[in-house]
């Protein structure tokens, strides 16, 4: 029989271990989310990330090693983005009917997200590459990384800020919008997609199909708009 350490050496080098760990952590997060009666603050992503971060820290595993296994899950982000065409198509006639409010909300939400994030961070003494890394945080991860890199930010930091923003949006959207008295599912979903990309969109789909479809549009359009706006706005702060 092999020593336990030998088995560990084998497992640590194969993608199987960290791929499985990622799925287990997410299943636990999802189970907790269901057990809580689908409360927004019991966010499956947040739980899974925390669990995995603790396990990596305890086993002294490097992120690169973890990512070799987890990349198979990460890869599916691309196809999932393409698949958003299906709910978009299903809601096409409603999207056409609300084109004007939609475009106004896109511009307002996108500009608010960039300026307020940079403004607060600047006021609290954040400068340089960290400030740049914050600018595209409301945009879906692959786009945000590209924007951050091209403006002299730190792409890996941006990735983390993007996830954090997504989780925050997913957690606060329902209570915030209830308090504001916004009952239009299109408006609710769209604003969440613009402010907190795919994680917000995933949350919107859990709440309401229409909200989910509009969140998907918000995410897609803001990816395009922020690519243009972020470099212009960041130049005001540098």
């Amino acid at each position: 029989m092999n020593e336990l350490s030998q088995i560990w050496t084998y497992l640590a080098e194969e993608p199987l271990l960290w791929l499985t760990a990622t799925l287990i952590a997410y299943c636990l997060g999802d189970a907790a989310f269901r057990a809580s009666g689908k409360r927004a603050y019991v966010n499956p992503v947040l739980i899974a990330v925390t669990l995995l971060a603790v396990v990596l820290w305890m086993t002294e595993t490097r992120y690169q090693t973890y990512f070799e296994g987890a990349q198979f899950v990460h890869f599916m982000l691309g196809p999932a983005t393409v698949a958003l065409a299906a709910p978009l198509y299903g809601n096409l006639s409603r999207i056409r009917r609300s084109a004007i409010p939609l475009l106004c909300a896109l511009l307002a939400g996108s500009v608010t997200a960039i300026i307020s994030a940079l403004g607060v961070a600047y006021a609290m003494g954040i400068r340089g590459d960290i400030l740049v890394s914050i600018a595209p945080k409301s945009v879906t991860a692959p786009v945000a990384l590209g924007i951050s890199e091209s403006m002299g930010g730190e792409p890996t930091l941006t990735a983390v800020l993007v996830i954090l923003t997504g989780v925050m949006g997913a957690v606060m959207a329902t209570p915030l919008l209830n308090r504001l008295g916004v009952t239009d599912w299109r408006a609710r979903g769209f604003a969440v997609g613009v402010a907190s990309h795919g994680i917000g969109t995933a949350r919107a789909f859990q709440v309401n199909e229409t909200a989910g479809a509009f969140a998907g549009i918000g995410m897609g359009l803001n990816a395009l708009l922020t690519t243009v706006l972020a470099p212009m706005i960041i130049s005001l702060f540098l």
Partner: protein
Amino acid sequence: MILHLTTILVFQLIGETLTRSLGWVVPGPVLGMALLLVFFMAVPRVAKAMQPTAQGLLSHLSLLFVPAGVGIVGHLDRMGTDGPAIFLALLISTALSIAVGALVFSSIARWMGAEE
């Protein structure tokens, strides 16, 4: 099922290839999504057939963000010093953006009489 997954991957591939070869800033999958939407509009039959596969992919969308999120382990030292300021900036900005976006959308929709 496998045909539908292949279709999705083909559109992503077309999107990636186009954005890279044309030097566009738009990410490949977003362009792929737009092209697939155009394809659905041209051939509605395909859209109906692909609905279950797309739904399957999207029903656990949040799982797909976990690997990138774990990247926080590499930034824990920075989070110690600048963490509170960054956290506050993200929190205020996300709340403001959701509130402004939703209020602009719903009030313009109401003003135009384009309510649901």
